[in-house]
């Protein structure tokens, strides 16, 4: 496909970055990992829960009384018998980091950079990234899961709420895309 966005090379590597995989092959790989999670542990993949565990742990370090009285954080702290970071999704997300780094190094795509369109300043792009993260956190918590935990996992299990959620992610995205085009094009 001629229209594919091409990755930039890793500086100093002396070789061009490999193109991304055929999306269908990457998708099959992703689907098989998801299937393995169903078969081995009886649950799907996720990501946002690991952020919740980390935040609960940090708040508990700084202000334990506050963390334990907060109903939402309490759910990620438990009764104190196990460490808050000893959670399935935390280990899974650590794996995501390792796997992505491995793939990025292998393909010559790992490099310190900011992903943005040519028309936007780095500072504004980072501000948008931060704002987007906040919105994402709210959306994911309202919906009980993010694109991994809801759309991908629930999609494969034909979960009603996941399909409704997935549809609305695209609706939400396309409805504001025009207003944000300066950031990407």
């Amino acid at each position, binding site marked *: 496909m001629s229209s594919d966005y091409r990755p930039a090379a890793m500086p100093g590597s002396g070789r061009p970055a490999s193109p991304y995989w055929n999306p269908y092959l990457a998708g099959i790989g992703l689907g098989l990992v998801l299937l393995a999670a169903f078969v081995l542990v009886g649950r799907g993949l996720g*990501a946002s829960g690991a952020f919740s565990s980390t935040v609960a742990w940090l708040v508990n370090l700084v202000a334990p009384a506050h963390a334990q009285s907060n109903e939402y954080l309490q759910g990620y702290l438990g009764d104190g018998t196990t460490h808050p970071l000893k959670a399935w999704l935390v280990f899974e997300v650590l794996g995501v980091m390792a796997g992505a780094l491995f793939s990025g190094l292998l393909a010559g795509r790992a490099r310190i950079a900011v992903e943005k369109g040519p028309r936007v300043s780095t500072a504004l792009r980072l501000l948008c990234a*931060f704002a987007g993260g906040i919105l994402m956190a709210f959306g994911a918590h309202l919906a009980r899961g993010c694109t991994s935990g809801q759309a991908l996992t629930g999609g494969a299990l034909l979960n009603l709420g996941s399909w409704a959620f997935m549809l609305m992610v695209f609706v939400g995205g396309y409805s504001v895309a025009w207003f944000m085009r300066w950031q990407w094009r």
Partner: protein
Amino acid sequence: MAPFYKYGFFGDEMSLVLAFVLGTGFGFFLERAGFGSARKLAAQFYLYDMSVFKVMFTAIVTAMLGVTYLGWLGWLDLSLVYLVPTHLVPQIVGGLVLGVGFVVGGYCPGTSVASLATGRIDGFVYAFGIGAGTLVYAEVFPWIKGFVNSNGMGQVTLPEVFDLPWGLVVFVVVLIAVAGFSAATLVERRFGDKA
């Protein structure tokens, strides 16, 4: 009989090791697909690169066919695979907010982890934003708790809601996906020259 963990073939410690191993695979394929880059991801919403749709639906179809066949063979007890409970209205609102956050920030939680691991500063800032948003959410949770827990329908699947056989829904999803892939490729050709 699977899921192995729920049948007690291994304990909590082993499940955490598997979490890391499965995560490695997840991260590897995310990066292979190009999802460590916000520009590649955001392109989905500007129609010149529909990889997000293609990768996501291929993964869904693959895993869906997998659980269907393993369940049919009697090797996987689907009732033991965790299903997020459906709360329709909060999930619709959550999806909209998340979609906006996707376009504004360029990532979702999983892809931001893949991008920060490959050195993208915007991915790191985005992940930091998720943390900040989680903190704010936890503080306002008592006020929005009623809404978040409204419309509870329990663990419910599409075949159950529409009273259709599981296999028929699987078949329809596969057809929609394949038709969607060809349509997406046509859309890419139409909008690609603007990139």
